[in-house]
């Protein structure tokens, strides 16, 4: 029972983490909440649906890779269209947030207006869906998603730590202006940033689509990822991972708890929101966050 709860929690938590990492990555450098991340995730899932179900019969792995690529490119375009002008103008982060919200609203409703509100299923990936370990059922897809997420985040970590671009991104998260003065092309750096964030988002979208369904408002699940990122500490990558996994685990735990006759699973979202509020009171910077002192 406990083992089962942990497995459920980790499987949803790893998807939260995947989303939170992309969101946090953008936040750490550009210092604003990219609310369009959820829409990119949704579009990633729709790309997979289009090439796996609607138009072609592309098998899962190539479809996953294409979705990652497609979502990455969409995120890049999103930055070019909606943020780059504001970024160059050094607009207040409020403007960037509003612009991001605009993209989220437009894309989600574009899906409603064109493809419609219908729910679509992605074909099952594994013939036998689950196996048992020590009395707990593990879905093969969840396991695959978990392993794939871990590998992706691990690759990202290596990229950030050991490559030139990664070093530039880390430096930019401390001081973007300085990095630009040192001769790094900020446009390229930001483009790479959004490609990575979008790619991770696309991956999360496909996993979500397989696990549940594909529909226009599925991107709202990123709200949880945002909360996870704040729990971990806005702008911190390890924070985003730990925050996402922790939130997944806590939600799984709450879902199987009942108090009296009330099943707490109904109130799972209220619980997540409550955690956020309490954490901000107890530890405003999150678990791994750093406080930024404004320079005068």
């Amino acid at each position, binding site marked *: 029972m406990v083992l089962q709860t942990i497995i459920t929690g980790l499987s949803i938590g790893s998807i939260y983490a995947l989303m939170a990492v992309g969101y946090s990555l953008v936040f750490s450098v550009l210092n604003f909440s990219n609310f369009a991340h959820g829409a990119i995730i949704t579009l990633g899932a729709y790309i997979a649906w289009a090439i796996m179900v609607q138009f072609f019969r592309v098998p899962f792995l190539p479809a996953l890779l294409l979705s990652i690529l497609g979502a990455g490119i969409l995120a890049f375009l999103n930055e070019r269209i*909606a943020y780059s002008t504001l970024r160059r103008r050094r607009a207040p982060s409020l403007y960037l947030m509003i612009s991001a919200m605009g993209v989220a609203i437009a894309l989600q409703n574009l899906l409603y207006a064109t493809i419609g509100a219908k729910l679509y299923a992605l074909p099952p990936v594994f013939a036998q869906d689950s196996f048992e370990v020590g009395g707990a059922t593990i879905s093969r897809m969840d396991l695959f998603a978990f392993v794939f997420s871990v590998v992706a985040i691990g690759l990202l970590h290596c990229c950030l730590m050991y490559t030139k671009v990664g070093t530039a991104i880390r430096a930019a998260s401390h001081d973007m202006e300085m990095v630009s003065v040192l001769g790094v092309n900020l446009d390229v750096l930001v483009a790479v940033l959004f490609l990575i964030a979008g790619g991770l988002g696309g991956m999360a979208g496909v996993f979500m689509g397989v696990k549940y369904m594909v529909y226009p408002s599925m991107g709202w699940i990123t709200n949880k990822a945002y909360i996870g990122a704040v729990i971990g500490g806005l702008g911190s990558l390890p924070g985003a991972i730990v925050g996402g996994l922790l939130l997944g685990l806590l939600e799984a735990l709450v879902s199987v708890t009942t108090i009296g006759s009330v099943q707490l699973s109904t109130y799972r979202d209220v619980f997540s929101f409550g955690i956020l509020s309490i954490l901000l009171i107890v530890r405003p910077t999150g678990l791994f966050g750093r406080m930024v002192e*404004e320079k005068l």
Partner: protein
Amino acid sequence: MAYAQAIFTNSAIYIIAAMGLAIFTGYTGLFSLGHAAFMAAGAYTAAILTYFYHWPLLPALLLGMIVSVLVSLVVGYPTLRVKLRSDYLAIATLGFGEALKVILENLDLTQGARGLPGIQKLAGPINTAVWMVLTIWVCRNFLRSTYGRKIIAIGQDPVAAEMIGIRLLPNQMLSLGFSAALAGLSGGLLAHYVTFIQPAIFSMDLSSLLTAGVVCGGMGSLTGPIVATALFVVVPELFRGLALWRLVLYGVLLVVIMNLRPKGLYGHEELNLGNLPKLFLIIGLTVGLTIGAGIYNDYAPEWGTVPGLLLAAVVGLMVTVAMNYAGRGLARLLRPVLPHLGATWYRGFNRIVRLFEGLFSPRERTAGTAGAVAPRPQANVAAAKPLLSIRGLRKHFGGVIAVDGVDLDVWPGQIVGLIGPNGSGKTTVFNLTSGVYPIDSGAVTFEGRALAGQPPTSIVLGGISRTFQNIRLFSSMTVLENVQTALHTAGDYGLLAAFVQWPWTVRPTEERLRARAMELLGVVELQAFADRVAGTLPYGLQRKLEIARALALQPKLLLLDEPAAGMNPQESLDLVELIKRIHERMQLTVVLIEHHMDVVMNLCDRIAVLNFGKKIAEGTPDEIQSNPLVLEAYLGQKVEYAPQG
């Protein structure tokens, strides 16, 4: 007719909520994605009271507003505590929206997702209109009060606002609460107008509508969002067949406006008679959209959606453009009289207000304006103790030690210069003294009280005010408003008075503040620019304005950070005179950081020299000029110094 009434009532209800968001996002600069949820809180509270308990509308609405305010404060408090991080608030309000939906869907009292059908229809066009007018009036009053100015200041530059003693958290909470009250009112009216509510009504779509209204209308304007929100309610009603595309349009508009015209339709101005072209553009937009919609509705069924839409767009656009040019032409024709037209209207209005005022206000209350320039009564402990005493001050940023054990005493009435090469830690000393950064070790004592650990606002209000190296004015406010804002501690009326603007309490105070602000502008010779927008002033005058704003706090100690930066020799000379003047007239003690040596040598009684975070010399200007260590720090080698003249 009934249809027009319905559109009007809907617009009025959403305008009330949009006013709230205009205050919160437009003026305070904070992003909320949960205003639909605050509307829900008000709507459900009011509806439950009239539905189950048969309360009359008014008390139900009021209780709905109260609940909405309480809820917003509970959501806002944890996030607003984190200074200068509006992202937390946006995420928390987003999360709250989802959480409230879950709660409403599962409570018995709210009848779950089915909602509450058959609420009494207690709101109609007339009482809704009254509420709307009342709301607009209250918002306008609020923004013109000391409370409103504090909030606008925070929206424009939170750091500068703190540095004139405005506390962020309580004022942001006030803005949030006020804004949520209006959302609650709007929700309550909505429930009693449509007579049926369910959780799905108060979705993200509704928040999007409000955000789009405020952003497109102009953040920093009240009339702009009114116009835009009304348009956003009317237009989709006209284009019935395209309902799904409505939200796509809002989203695209948000992106386009932010990127191309962040100030929206009206920016920091209001709709007025003096600006005919804009007025005509808006009328043109409305008429064009209406005609376009009419064409679309007539032809689309025959011709198909796309050609219908195209024709509608072409005709609508032509009408809009024609109206736009008509407005410009009329404005050109009326150019000689136009400014007077607006002014006359304004004067007439003011005369009526004054007449009204005369009926209520006893004469002696308006009389007696205390002189701002009059020196603050000084306790006669002078010269016995230093006013500001710094001992062993240290601060490091990462591995860099910015200030390394600095000692400094500033005696009352002195002008002390702080000089040193770039990066020697001068500004950091100011930042530590004014509480911007926490002190690593050492002590700063002001009038015998230790400053360490005090928040910047109480240090400022305790008598130390400052200016900034890179000017930080409230750039969209006028010159006069910048100074008025800093006079916030002199506002002696309550919040309720601010909402209603009682002519017998608020007006005299406001007039006194205005007179004081003018007096302070007189000190820095900026009276002629009182109504200019601060951001449009030339650089040198902006510096003077910053000094006037700092003086408004009646400081005992004034910290000037490179006041002569970027000034030519003549301007620096004027500045020296100005500082001498305020020093004498207001009995100020001054510490200034400056690179212009003529300014420093002319003004200062004593000079302290910093290099690499350490004080390397202190003394009179003559002593400093001949100090070999100082010369070495500035020139890198020892040279013979030959005094001039």
